[in-house]
């Protein structure tokens, strides 16, 4: 075992240690520590990705002194390493682009707390990506919920309080379902580690024992994770939370944290119960229908918004619908497209939230579209970044969004009958609706203001923030142009995932 084999563990530990030290440091130092932690995790994950690309299979890493069936372990494959690299890259760029306006939302004394929560959220995301133990999943999902609650409520106004109360109620309900599911699964199999669980579940399916409880377990865990990742009918908490949180928190929440839940769900499907059981229990059809409905209905709701941040929040729900549609197809190509969409959406949505803040900021802190006229001229880099990110949302070629839609359509073509029809219709309608509201926004930020509104002068955006946003933009283009190797990693990673 070489040093690099330890890097996933180091990256988790690094975040947690940094969180502890951030509480003692000065305000500026804490910011620097958080920034360097995200860079450190990015480097460590990139090394891990390089290592796993050379390995044929994933490898387990023992946590503590007790070996696998009794002790805890993490398991590292190329899919996990790819996700960790993507997540930390997005977080790093978001922090550079977003940290400078934190003082507008986070009071002086709370800055350290904010840094701790960012570290904690990253640690929880990494654990959820790597872990191989179902109870660890539960514990770190709760830690992530606490961290995201603090990230939102640090902005002290009535809206965030109401939004976060709704958020907490829905998330705790979801955690309750998840925990009950895990408890029942432990009751019928006697395992919590995913490999022995998978063997035990297959045994149960073969002998036909506990068929009913197994169905209930799958339903409970799927529903719990679906609520937490804002799948369409359960998305009620999402728009307000994303719209009223500090922009950096919205970027982290919708870009990174919501993906961790879906990654756990894929892991549960592949490693614990097996995709065959999911298909024979028709759980995938439920996800598919919800995904399609979300893509269309959330887009319609996005059109009806007058506040730009709520519009982007609803579009986030619609984009999660794409992930669930891919996952719900049940074939490998669909899941591949879903994983790729998770990466694309993490990059695009975080930069959309951050550039929107810049556009609002140069329009006198007003979020309605009519005040945003001309914002693209008042802050040129933010306007360009927003336009390109919007193009990726619509699915213009040479952006990540195009590759996602292409792959979803190709994997939908593998089916006959209503599934193929539904996939194509949903993609077409959702593209059209996306075009309606994103092009409308792009047009309004480049339209000359009609009435002579007075826009107060604001300090220009720092150069490094603009550079970070442009780097995200390059990442979006890279995902659109150089997607082949990434798709290959996802394909081979999924083969060894279970």
């Amino acid at each position: 075992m070489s040093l690099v084999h330890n890097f996933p563990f180091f990256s988790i530990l690094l975040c947690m240690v940094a969180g502890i030290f951030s509480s003692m440091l000065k305000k500026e130092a804490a910011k620097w520590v958080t920034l360097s932690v995200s860079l450190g995790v990015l480097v460590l994950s990139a090394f891990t990705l390089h290592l796993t690309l050379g390995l044929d299979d994933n490898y387990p890493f023992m946590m503590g002194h007790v070996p696998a069936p009794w002790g805890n372990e993490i398991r590292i494959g190329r899919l996990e390493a790819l996700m960790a690299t993507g997540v930390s890259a997005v977080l790093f760029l978001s922090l550079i682009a977003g940290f400078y306006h934190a003082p507008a939302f986070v009071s002086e004394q709370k800055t350290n707390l904010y840094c701790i929560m960012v570290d904690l959220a990253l640690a929880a995301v990494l654990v959820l990506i790597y872990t191989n133990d179902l109870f660890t999943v539960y514990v770190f999902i709760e830690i992530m919920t606490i961290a995201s609650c603090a990230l939102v409520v640090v902005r002290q106004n009535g809206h965030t309080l109401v939004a976060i109360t709704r958020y907490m109620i829905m998330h705790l309900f979801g955690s309750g379902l998840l925990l009950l599911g895990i408890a029942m699964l432990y009751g019928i199999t006697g395992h919590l580690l995913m490999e022995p669980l998978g063997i035990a579940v297959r045994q149960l399916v073969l002998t036909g024992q506990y068929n009913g409880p197994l169905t209930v377990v799958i339903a409970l865990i799927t529903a719990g994770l679906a609520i937490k990742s804002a799948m369409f009918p359960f998305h009620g908490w999402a728009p307000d939370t994303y719209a009223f949180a500090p922009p950096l928190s919205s970027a982290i929440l919708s870009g990174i944290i919501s993906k961790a839940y879906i990654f756990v769900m894929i892991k549960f499907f592949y490693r614990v119960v097996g995709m065959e059981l999911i298909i024979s229990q028709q759980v995938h059809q439920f996800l598919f229908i919800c995904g399609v409905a979300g893509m269309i209905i959330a887009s319609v709701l996005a059109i009806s918004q007058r506040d730009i941040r709520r519009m982007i929040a609803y579009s986030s729900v619609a984009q999660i619908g794409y992930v669930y549609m891919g996952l719900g197809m049940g074939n490998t190509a669909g899941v591949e497209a879903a994983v790729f969409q998770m990466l694309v959406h993490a990059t695009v949505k975080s930069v959309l939230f951050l550039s929107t803040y810049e556009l609002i900021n140069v329009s006198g802190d007003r979020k309605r579209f009519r005040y945003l006229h001309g914002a693209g001229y008042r802050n040129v880099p933010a306007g360009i970044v927003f336009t390109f990110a919007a193009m990726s949302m619509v699915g213009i070629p040479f952006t990540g969004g195009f590759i996602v839609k292409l792959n979803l359509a190709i994997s939908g073509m593998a089916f006959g009958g209503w599934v193929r029809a539904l996939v194509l219709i949903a993609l077409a309608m959702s593209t059209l609706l996306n075009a309606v509201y994103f092009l409308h926004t792009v047009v309004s930020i480049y339209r000359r203001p009609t009435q002579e509104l007075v826009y107060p002068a604001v300090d220009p955006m720092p150069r490094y923030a603009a550079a970070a946003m442009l780097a995200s933009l390059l990442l979006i283009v890279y995902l659109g142009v150089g997607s082949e190797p990434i798709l290959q990693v996802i394909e081979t990673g999924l083969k060894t995932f279970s």
Partner: protein
Amino acid sequence: MLQLLYENLEQTVAVILFGIGFTILLLQRNLIRKIIGLNIMDTAIYLFLASMGYISGRKAPIVVDGVTEVSAYINPIPAGLVLTGIVVSVSFTGILLALTVRLYRRYNTLDIDVIALLAKGEDA
């Protein structure tokens, strides 16, 4: 059917409690009642877990008097899980109560619908 429910009394009670808890959590408008509902829901799961680990006639897995064979003790893992779960639910109750205090100071009511209306009114 009734016989079956009676034989699995703890699990039956746990599921009923879970139902009561989540109904309160989702349907009550008063924030304090919601938090109580949440706690009932969590407690139900702990009862469910703890009852699975208990084997009647056996003792808690603490080695005393040199008895070391496994058959003398109950399964300790569910108890460990319950303890972890309790820690999680205590911290969540704390956070939710803190949020409730803040909301009450701001709006002088505990009714979530009224609070949402008042917050919307702040926009205008």
